[in-house]
C-alpha cells in the first residue's frame, strides 16, 4: 500500500494519538442528506467516520452494531430523521425503542456509552452532523481502541479476521 492513511500511521508508530474508526449508519432521507449538505457547505470534520447509507434508521439491526464492534470498529453512531419526520412514518419510532433498550443493554454489560450513540439529524442540520461526528470521534479517541475480547485481539494482530471465517475476502489489515 503506497498511501499510508493517518490511522495506520498512528497505529504503526504507536506514539501519535489514536485514531478511532467510527461507523455511522445514516438514513437516506434525513441524515444522509444532512451529511451531503455539510459537504456542500464545505464544512470540515474528522475523516474517522464512514457513513453507511440505509433507507431508514428503522432498518438498522442491533446485530449490525455488535458485529461492527466485534470486527474492529471503535464506535458506532446511528442517525435518522427526528421523530415525527420519518419518510416512512414510523421507522425512527421503532428504531428509538429498539436502540434505547439495546443501548442500555450494551452499557449494562460493560460497554462505554460513548461507543454506541444515536442522534436524530435532519436534512438541514449539516452543522449538527458535523458537530455530532466530531464529538463522537473525540469521545472515542479519549477512550482508546475498543478491545471487546483481549484474547481475540491478540490473535487478530497476528492473523486475518479470525472472528469471521465465512468471509471470502482476505483484506489487507
Amino acid at each position, binding site marked *: 500500500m503506497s498511501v499510508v492513511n493517518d490511522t495506520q500511521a498512528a497505529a504503526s508508530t504507536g506514539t501519535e494519538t489514536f485514531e478511532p474508526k467510527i461507523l455511522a449508519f445514516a438514513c437516506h432521507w434525513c441524515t444522509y442528506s444532512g451529511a451531503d449538505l455539510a459537504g456542500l457547505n464545505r464544512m470540515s470534520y474528522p475523516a474517522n467516520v464512514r457513513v453507511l447509507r440505509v433507507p431508514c434508521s428503522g432498518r438498522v439491526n442491533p446485530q449490525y452494531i455488535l458485529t461492527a464492534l466485534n470486527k474492529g470498529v471503535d464506535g458506532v453512531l446511528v442517525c435518522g430523521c427526528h*421523530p415525527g419526520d420519518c419518510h416512512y412514518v414510523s421507522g425512527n419510532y421503532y428504531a*428509538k425503542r429498539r436502540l434505547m*433498550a439495546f443501548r442500555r*443493554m450494551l452499557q449494562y454489560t460493560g460497554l462505554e456509552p460513548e461507543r454506541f450513540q444515536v442522534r436524530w439529524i435532519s436534512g438541514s442540520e449539516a452543522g449538527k452532523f458535523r458537530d455530532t461526528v466530531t464529538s463522537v470521534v473525540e469521545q472515542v479517541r479519549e477512550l482508546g481502541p475498543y478491545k471487546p475480547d483481549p484474547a481475540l485481539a491478540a490473535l487478530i494482530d497476528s492473523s486475518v479476521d479470525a472472528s469471521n471465517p465465512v468471509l471470502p475476502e482476505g483484506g489487507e489489515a
Partner: protein
Amino acid sequence: MTAIQESIQKRAAELLESGEVTQVIAWTNGRFTNQTSPLFIQNAADAGKIVFNEYCVNTLAKYVLNEKIAGKVGVCVRGCEARGINRMIADNQLKREEVYLLGIPCEGMKDRETGEALDKCLTCTHKNPVVYDELLGAEVTDTVSEEIDKVRFAQIEAIEGMSREERLEYFNNVFNSCIRCYACREVCPVCTCRECFVDQLRAGWQGKQNNLNENRFYNLIRVFHIGDRCVECGECARACPMGLPLMELNRKWIRDLDELFAAGEEGLSDELDNTLGRYKTDDIEEFM
C-alpha cells in the same frame, strides 16, 4: 399437592378416554430421588404415571409445539406455562383450540439437590395460571407485586450498582463460560423460529466459534429477540448447564421496557402486542 396429582390423573384419563385430547403432557418420576421429568401419554391407562410434587421443575409449555401435530394436546399449566402458552398463541405458533389446559395453582418448586426453592419460583408473579380450561385445586395468593419486584430486580439493581469495569468483567465471565449449547433456546416458549439466527450461515450474522465476542453476540441478540416477549418462566436459566444467570439479561430488558414504555408483563393475554413492535409519538426522547 397429592390432591392435585390425583385430579390431574383423573382428568387426564377422562380426557384421553373421551377422545377430547390425543395426548396429555404432565410430569412423572425420574430416575433419581426427587427428580421428575416431562411425561407424554396417549392412553388413559397411563394416567397413573402422572406425578405432581414440589420437584416438577420443568416448564412444559414449549413441548406442546412438537406434539400438537398429532391432535389436540392436554397440558398441565401453572402460571409460567400458561403465560408461555399465551405467548405462543400470540406469536401464531399455536392456536388456543389446539390445546386443552389443565390449570394448576403452584406455590413454587424446589431444587432436587438443595431442597431450596428454585430461583425462578422466588420471582414468580403469577402463581395461578392466567389461562386454563379448568382449574385443578384452589387459587393461591400471589405475593404482593411491590415485594416480588424487589426480588425480581434485586440482581439487576446490584449489577447496575457496579462500576462499568466491574460489569464488563462480570459479564465477560458469564459470556466466556457459555458453551453455546443453546439449551436456553430449546426450552424457551418464546424461541419459536423455524431456523434460529445462530444456525444460519450468513456473513456477520453469528460466527460459529466459541469465543467471547461470539458468545456475547449470541447472548445479547438472544435477549434482543426475546426481551420484549419474555414471559419470565426462568426456564432458560434453569436449563443452562453452566448455571449462567440468563435472567439477569432478560430482566434488565424487561425492566427497561417497562420503565421506558410501560411494557408491563408479557404472556398475560394471547394478543400480539410486542413492545418493540409498537410506538407512541410521545415516547420518551433521549437521543435528540
